[in-house]
């Protein structure tokens, strides 16, 4: 399957709490009303100017092996490698919230509206994450409808540039997926345009395959160890 998905911006606009967290405001802090107003305004700006889109394409293990290897710069061992080798379904994806949002953020900064610009930047980053979650859910639904996603299955996504998967794998990923069709292009440096875009692979298989320890060498540099929460979610789903 290969699908282009138009996402409603309202559906992926983030919660105020997640935006404030992204701004570095601790959960137990009580932000004043000015800050809350900035966050609300940023969310409504996003709902007006965000143009989220996604592309999703299933891929065989053999084809993915080549994409995963990329330019041969991955860490020697990664959690992704062992998981996809034991998986049953794989799909590549790319999502973007569009260029308009980045243009608006730049404009706010130019007009000295730094707090609003920075808040909108956080909203757009969070929304890009939520778009990726949405695509994951769409793929799960697609498999469920075909009775290919029993309760014993789990689903998890990974992106080049994380968890030992080198950013340079983006090139082969783009060759296969063609996200240019939804307006995402890749620079020589592997930067995607629009800036607020995410690419990666969605892996589906038995829940057990997703269990791994966060003790790879690159985990020492990882800020949030987000895999912990995500694999917990898999085992509880």
């Amino acid at each position, binding site marked *: 399957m290969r699908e282009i998905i138009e996402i409603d911006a309202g559906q992926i606009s983030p919660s105020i709490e997640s935006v404030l967290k992204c701004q570095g405001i601790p959960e137990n802090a009580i932000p004043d009303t000015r800050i809350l107003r900035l966050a609300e305004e940023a969310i409504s700006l996003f709902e007006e100017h965000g143009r989220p889109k996604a592309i999703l394409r299933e891929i065989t293990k053999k084809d993915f092996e080549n994409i995963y290897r990329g330019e041969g710069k991955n860490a020697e061992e990664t959690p992704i490698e062992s998981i996809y080798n034991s998986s049953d379904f794989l799909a590549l994806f790319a999502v973007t919230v569009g260029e308009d949002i980045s243009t608006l953020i730049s404009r706010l900064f130019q007009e*000295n509206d730094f707090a609003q610009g920075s808040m909108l930047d956080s909203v757009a980053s969070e929304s890009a994450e939520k778009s990726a979650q949405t695509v994951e859910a769409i793929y799960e639904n697609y498999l469920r409808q075909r009775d290919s996603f029993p309760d014993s299955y789990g689903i998890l996504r990974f992106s080049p540039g994380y968890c030992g998967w080198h950013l340079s794998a983006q090139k082969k990923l783009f060759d296969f997926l063609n996200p240019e069709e939804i307006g995402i292009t890749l620079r020589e440096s592997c930067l995607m345009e629009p800036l607020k875009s995410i690419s990666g692979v969605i892996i589906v298989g038995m829940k057990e395959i997703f269990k791994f320890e966060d003790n790879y060498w690159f985990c020492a540099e990882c800020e949030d160890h987000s895999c912990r929460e995500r694999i917990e979610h898999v085992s509880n789903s």
Partner: protein
Amino acid sequence: MEILKQISESLEKGDFNRVGELTQQALDQGLDPKVILDDGLIAGMSIVGQKFKVHEIFLPDVLLAAKAMYAGMDLLKPLMIKENIPSIGKVVMGTVQGDLHDIGKNLVSIMLKGAGLDVIDLGNDVPPAKFVDTAISENADVIGISTLLTTTMPVMGEVVEMAKERGVYGKVKIIVGGAPLNADYAEQIGADAYCFDGVNAVDCVKRFLGAG
């Protein structure tokens, strides 16, 4: 002086209209623009920076204060240029060629300006030569380079090499920042410092300028 204290306090609150009004009043009273800048605006911004450092206030508070600071600075800058009053230092900032991530670089620029430094922001996707050429032509004290991607990190090393070739290495200090970097990497490429955020960058630049 009362009015300078009021400027500083209004700035802390992020009240940009009030800061603009008070700055104009201070000028009308015949106060020296440099004094208004140092003892009103920069004094206020420095308290904001300190409070941010100890997590008493948060990023949006700092950015609201910065907007207020600019409201005052916009009135003072033309006068300071006319009267040839030098700033405490000049920094050339940019995101390296191949990278468009600029929020972090922008936040650092805002903090540096808030500390009274002149910042020449080259934007993003900046070729190595442009950093060095601008630093030379503008007689800058510091080059600040940002990147968020591992693939573009080596470009920072190219800026350092170019500074060596043009004979300004050591004279123009080079600071680097961005998520995938660390102090070891900065040292490895020969940069003068790695800074993890804007407040840290202000401390670092002031140290280089012997002003803090």
